[in-house]
């Protein structure tokens, strides 16, 4: 199969959906000639023109609000917030408006809006450009939260997100835009709420999403050398969450390591751990381990930055603490 970059997979999904549905349009900062901060929209301004590729002033709240308003009136906008750190400026529109409108209005109105953004550390861009804030959106009823790791997943899930009739937080990771992965030529979509087993194994389940999938795969490779077989479950969407896939893997392995780049306090990882404890306690042969980012603003200095997020070695260590071989 051909291999394409993650950002190219995004671009393909957008093109396919824009070609098949004239109601789909793009709105955000520097998405015109600049092609987006990570160049995922390269050339789209030439292909679709400024009416469907709306390059806005630096007005985040209005970008999301405009997305909501257009969604309420028949369009399917893909609104981009350049860094997840800047969603802070849009929280009323996302949390009080987009997430709740359908419910509050008794299903009278709905908001088919995709909010594309990206987070994560690793580029030395410090505390206001490196955060992993998915837990905020995970916490708010009414939002779907998608965090694809691979080119294949990002393409199939973005197409599903665009077709969804409800608001979707589509969260990418800044370190993986140039990663290449197999993507078929023919069209496909990936349903929400369906985890993907990124590696099959027997001894321990590793739950990981976004960039942490790759760190987990690296760890699993290391652990294999010591005869420890890891199963990696990538939920791909945090809301809806494929809890069954996690539970059934845990039933097989009896052990769980939950990995999260986001800092641990109030994290998705803590919630997963609580759910598995409640629902599969009897199947666990060891305590659940959480490998998460430190509770710190992300520092600029690269040694400190790297120390504040999990690496393969941390995952290996955690696995070895609960798997004795």
């Amino acid at each position, binding site marked *: 199969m051909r291999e394409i970059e993650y950002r190219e997979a995004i671009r393909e999904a957008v093109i396919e959906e824009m070609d098949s549905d004239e109601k789909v349009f793009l709105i955000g*900062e*520097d998405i*015109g*000639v*600049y092609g987006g*901060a990570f160049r995922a929209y390269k050339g789209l301004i030439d292909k679709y023109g400024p009416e469907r590729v709306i*390059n*806005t*002033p*630096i*007005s*985040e*709240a*209005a970008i999301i609000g405009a997305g909501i308003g257009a969604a309420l009136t028949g369009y399917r906008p893909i609104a981009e917030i350049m860094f997840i*750190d*800047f969603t*802070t*400026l849009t929280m009323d529109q996302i949390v009080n408006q987009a997430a709740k409108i359908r419910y509050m209005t008794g299903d009278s109105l709905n908001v088919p809006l995709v909010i594309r953004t990206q987070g994560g550390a690793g*580029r*030395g*861009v*410090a*505390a*206001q*450009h490196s955060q992993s804030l998915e837990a905020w959106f995970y916490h708010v009823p009414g939002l779907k939260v998608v965090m694809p790791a691979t080119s294949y997943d990002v393409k199939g899930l973005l197409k599903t997100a665009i077709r969804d009739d409800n608001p979707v937080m589509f969260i990418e990771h800044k370190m993986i835009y140039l990663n290449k992965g197999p993507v078929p030529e023919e069209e496909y979509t990936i349903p929400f709420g369906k985890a993907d087993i990124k590696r099959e194994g027997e001894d321990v389940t590793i739950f990981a999403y976004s960039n942490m999938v790759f760190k987990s795969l690296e760890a699993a490779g290391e652990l294999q050398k010591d005869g420890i077989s890891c199963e990696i479950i990538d939920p791909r969407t945090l809301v809806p969450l494929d809890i069954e896939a996690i539970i059934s893997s845990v039933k097989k392995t009896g052990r769980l390591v939950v990995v999260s780049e986001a800092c641990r306090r109030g994290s998705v990882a803590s919630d997963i751990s609580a759910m598995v404890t409640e629902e599969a306690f009897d199947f666990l042969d060891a305590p659940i381990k959480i490998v998460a980012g*430190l*509770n*710190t*603003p992300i*520092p*600029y*200095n*690269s*040694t*400190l930055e790297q*120390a*504040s997020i999990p690496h393969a070695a941390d995952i290996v260590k955690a696995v070895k603490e609960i798997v004795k071989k």
Partner: protein
Amino acid sequence: MTNISKEAKIEMLKKLIEIRRFEEKTVQLYQTAKIWGYLHPSLGQEAIAVGACSAITGDDYIVSTHRGHGHCIAKGANLNLMMAELLGKATGYCKGRGGSMHIADTELKMLGANGIVGGGIPISVGAGFSCKMDGNGKVVICFFGDGASNNGVFHESLNMASVFKLPVIYICENNLYAISMCSRESVACKNVGDRASSYGMPGYIIDGNDLTEVYETVKKAADDARKGNGPSLIEAQTYRWGGHHPNDPGAYKDKEEADYYKKEKDPVVNFKKKLMAEGIITDRDIDKFEDEIKKMIDDSVKFAEESPEPELDKFLEEVKQI
């Protein structure tokens, strides 16, 4: 500027050169990966930082932006500590935690650069309240870009500062671009300065490449603020010489316009010429300043390179307190 001493003019020229050479050095260091992350040089905009900071006192505050090196230097920052921060060292202004976008210093009354566009504008309102409550005649300069003036926080803050007659001088550095977005297309009225009338404050639209004009306008706005007349908005028109950052070639910029600004509106060259025409300095003096500044900058790089990295163990201990 007639009532400005010769010495003060020379100081301003030195600051201009200091910023220019410092920024050139940071771009070099970025290209050799000694500095990483995001770096936003203020090349071409030096006269705004120097003119504005020279028109206030050391006790007055400034609030800066992601493109803030010039503001720091103009406010009197120590180049060693700045450079150490850019290299992520423990000796830097932010102990290596912040990098280019977050330099701040209590003693300098520099309330911080900012990674969030417009993030400093509301903060200037609070600093303005402090100055007013202290009643000691201090003022705040709030720097921001043309792009930032399109964010909601700009509008909330200017309105509030005006309602409470706070001593804040809002300086919009309109360098024509916000990353790739030209301010001619992003600002709905003709000039950012026109927005002042919506908030009931004086608005000035000036040539931000002319140090004298910047100095005099800020001086007037600061005098007004000190007298309790409230805030002003100054749009200082200038030009971002480079791309948004050193890795952005700025292909979307008009080449002729870029050439025009570099050739005709270079704020450093023009001020130099002016002082020479006034007979205040000679070529020999300029050479001397350049040598002194080169040495300061080389020393700052040396200081930064020889400085220790932040200690990992200490970091891990500190994290427990957060």
